[in-house]
């Protein structure tokens, strides 16, 4: 094995999979949803890291450094995915906002009262599992845009650039995603009778 004797040498790359594999995979899976895509992205990350080992700066931990590369790989995936989605014109299958409201703009299914203490709820694994499920069933494009916005905190301006869409389009997609997510969480977690 090649191990050039530089002082800033990170750990042996052959141990990366054991050390960081699961973490990177879980991180990727929370963004890209599809297990085989997540695995692919992690694989690309490790190979890219291998080629860029000399750039590793000791100021950050190796895990942080690898996560940084992973984030770039995930962006690349989204960019490619956006092109595919545009080609397929998947938009037509997405739920229109109209289904949530009556003709004169009133709620069709009125938002229920969510009786819960947020601080208690956030501690519950079951609740986070419901949230994960509801994120996973969002339509593809909504999921991509919403994930970048809410999990990675990208601005809508950056998202527009990445997906080559207008700001208005971006807000519409985020609105739909939030409507669906809210609905899903309400159905699957809060069963309180409508008030």
């Amino acid at each position, binding site marked *: 094995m090649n191990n050039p004797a530089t002082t800033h040498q990170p750990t042996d790359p*052959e141990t990366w*999979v*054991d050390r960081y594999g699961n973490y990177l995979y879980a991180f990727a899976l929370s963004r890209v949803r599809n297990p085989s895509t997540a695995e692919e992205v992690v*694989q690309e990350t490790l190979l890219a890291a291998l080629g860029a080992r000399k750039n590793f700066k000791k100021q950050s931990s190796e895990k942080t450094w690898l996560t940084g590369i992973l984030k770039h790989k995930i962006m690349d995936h989204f960019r490619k995915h956006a092109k595919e989605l545009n080609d397929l014109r998947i938009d037509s299958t997405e739920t229109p906002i109209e289904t949530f*409201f009556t003709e004169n703009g009133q709620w069709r299914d009125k*938002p229920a009262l969510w009786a819960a203490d947020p601080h208690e709820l956030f501690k519950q694994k079951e609740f986070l599992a419901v949230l994960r499920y509801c994120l996973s069933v969002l339509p593809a494009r909504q999921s991509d845009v919403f994930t970048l916005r809410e999990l990675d905190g990208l601005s809508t301006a950056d998202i527009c650039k990445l997906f080559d869409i207008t700001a208005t389009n971006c*807000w519409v997609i985020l609105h739909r995603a939030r409507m669906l997510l809210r609905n899903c969480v309400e159905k699957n977690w809060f069963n309180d009778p409508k008030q």
Partner: protein
Amino acid sequence: MRMDHWLFNCKEISRLVSESMDRTLPVFQRIGIRIHLLMCRYCARFEKQLRFLRRAIRVYSSAVDNEHHPATLSEESCNRMKCKLHDHLRDQS
């Protein structure tokens, strides 16, 4: 209770509430939302719930970052990756 005839209806409010989480809305829209939310408990709930979900997703996201995410790579996948890394290392040397 005539919010459907005044300023914005619930459908428009749901859009504006969502948009307010992505950018700063013009003042008249912000006032419109406030007034509507005072009069309409369903939209008030909606607004609270969207903010709650944003926080919940941050908690979820940090759970992933702190390795509390149940996803794990299969042994097969691990071996596949190790082989690839090994091959590349060999090519580099």
